[in-house]
């Protein structure tokens, strides 16, 4: 199982803050999750067309970062704190 999190504008766009995704053996990197979510069509496609960041287990990573069963994967827009 993967835990998928969405924050800020991205969460508003996809209308969901958290979902659980069944682990599939062909999952190799964050790219595979992005592809799968994009295949759902709108609003995912639109939301993911923006400049978004991804973190695996609370660390920002490139989209080719390897993932394993049990990971927490978060998607969010560029940060605006401080």
């Amino acid at each position, binding site marked *: 199982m993967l835990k998928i999190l969405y924050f800020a504008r991205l969460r508003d766009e996809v209308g969901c803050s958290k979902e659980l995704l069944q682990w599939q053996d062909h999952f190799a990197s964050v790219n595979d999750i992005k592809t799968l979510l994009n295949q759902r069509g709108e609003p995912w496609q639109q939301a993911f067309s923006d400049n978004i960041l991804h973190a695996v287990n609370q660390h920002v990573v490139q989209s080719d970062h390897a993932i394993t069963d049990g990971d927490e994967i978060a998607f969010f*827009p560029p940060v*605006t704190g401080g």
Partner: protein
Amino acid sequence: MLVLTLDQITIQTEDFNVAQEHQCLLQDAPNIGAIVTFTGLVKEFTKDDNTSLFLEHYSTMTEKVLADIIQQAKQRWPIINSRIIHRIGHLQLGEQIVFVGANSPHRSDAFAACEFIIDFLKTEAPFWKKEITSEGESWVDAKESDRKTRERWYNFIESG
């Protein structure tokens, strides 16, 4: 291996007291010669002055990122202690939003560490601001200027 106590980092909805934080940073005297503090305030709304802010964050990641920024600062400069406070939730114009403090034997190190921490917090810590007006809500866009300000530190390292 650097030791980092988590009470150096606080995320809270309530306001903070700079006097109290300064007092804590003074405790390291006489091993320090300098204390530098930065306080960030809510300003510059893209809408009108009746706007308020709402801040959210990715809590488990926030703590990791801020702890990592402090570690990086401690590896670069001989700072004795540092402190980060960031507020979340609803904030009005003019309110204190973020505090960074650092102390060190030498003043230039305290200045550099404090500015480094806030520059990296701005571009790496997972906080997001939303502006709320009577007409609705809108997410604040990330600023290119903040990204460029952070870049300075990389140039600084390469040329230093």
